[in-house]
């Protein structure tokens, strides 16, 4: 079954993510200023500058190309939200992979790269919590749930392998020789991460589904009450 592309969910998620784009920009700018005050060199700020260039430059290009500056019209604002969402995602992945690469290639300067967790982590947490409360994180039906869980399982296995190899991988080699006991560590780490991720994500989707069903029930009750009021007035 194909993945659902629900326009209502996309619209509401884009509106929320567009706001988080500004939060991410503000956090990134603050982190850069603090780093410069503390005497960071260009190499320690390269990712900050790249992320800001992508975020601000991308916004300038997209808004100019699509005529979105000062958009007040509902449709233009939706297009603007979609553009900012794409930029948010670009900045997010740039930060996650950039931080990962910097941490592994320049481990001595880890403290300069640690604040990136705040820059990508805080907006991500806000989006997740709000999505759960507003019922935007959901399967959308029993059939979709089955297909979605299969996709989740596939993604979890890939993530677990990646996590196990990256974190436990170095223990497979000691003094230049392969250590079979390290492989057990890789498998254990992957299994623990995978199980935790799958259980947590499934629980979140269940909660989101419940919130969405509650929103539909409340909307129906509200409309029933409004209908009764209109009938009384007549």
């Amino acid at each position, binding site marked *: *079954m*194909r993945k*659902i*592309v*629900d*326009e*209502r*969910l996309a619209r509401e998620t884009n509106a929320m993510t567009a706001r988080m784009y500004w939060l991410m920009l503000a956090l990134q700018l603050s982190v850069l200023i603090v780093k410069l005050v503390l005497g960071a060199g260009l190499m320690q700020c390269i990712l900050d500058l790249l992320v800001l260039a992508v975020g601000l430059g991308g916004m300038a290009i997209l808004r100019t190309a699509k005529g979105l500056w000062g958009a007040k019209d509902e449709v233009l604002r939706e297009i603007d939200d979609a553009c900012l969402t794409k930029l948010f995602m670009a900045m997010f992945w740039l930060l996650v992979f950039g931080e990962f690469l910097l941490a592994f290639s320049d481990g001595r300067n880890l403290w300069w790269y640690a604040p990136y967790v705040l820059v990508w982590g805080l907006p991500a947490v806000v989006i997740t919590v709000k999505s759960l409360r507003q*019922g935007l994180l*959901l*399967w*959308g*039906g*029993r*059939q*979709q749930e089955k297909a979605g869980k299969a996709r989740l399982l596939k993604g979890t296995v890939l993530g677990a392998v990646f996590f196990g190899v990256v974190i436990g991988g170095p223990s497979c080699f000691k003094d230049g020789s392969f250590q079979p006991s390290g492989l057990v560590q890789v498998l254990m780490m992957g299994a623990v991460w995978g199980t935790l991720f799958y259980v947590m994500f499934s629980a979140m989707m269940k909660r989101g589904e419940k919130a*969405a*069903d509650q*929103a*539909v029930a409340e*909307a*129906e009750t*509200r*409309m*029933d009450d*409004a*209908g009764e009021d209109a009938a009384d007035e007549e």
Partner: protein
Amino acid sequence: MKNKRMKIARIEKDLSQEQLAVLLGVTRQTIGLIESGSYNPTLKLCIAICKALDKTLDELFWPEE
């Protein structure tokens, strides 16, 4: 305002909210919100609903006099 005509058309077609949602590639909750009148679908989704239920836009979405 509730969209009772869409709900009736769906039931006439013997479709549950979930079955219609699968046909349209949206969530069950979105169908629920359209029927309860809490969500205004785009023209694209309105046309897809009409095609799935064999109705015209007027029959399902034009306000009743």
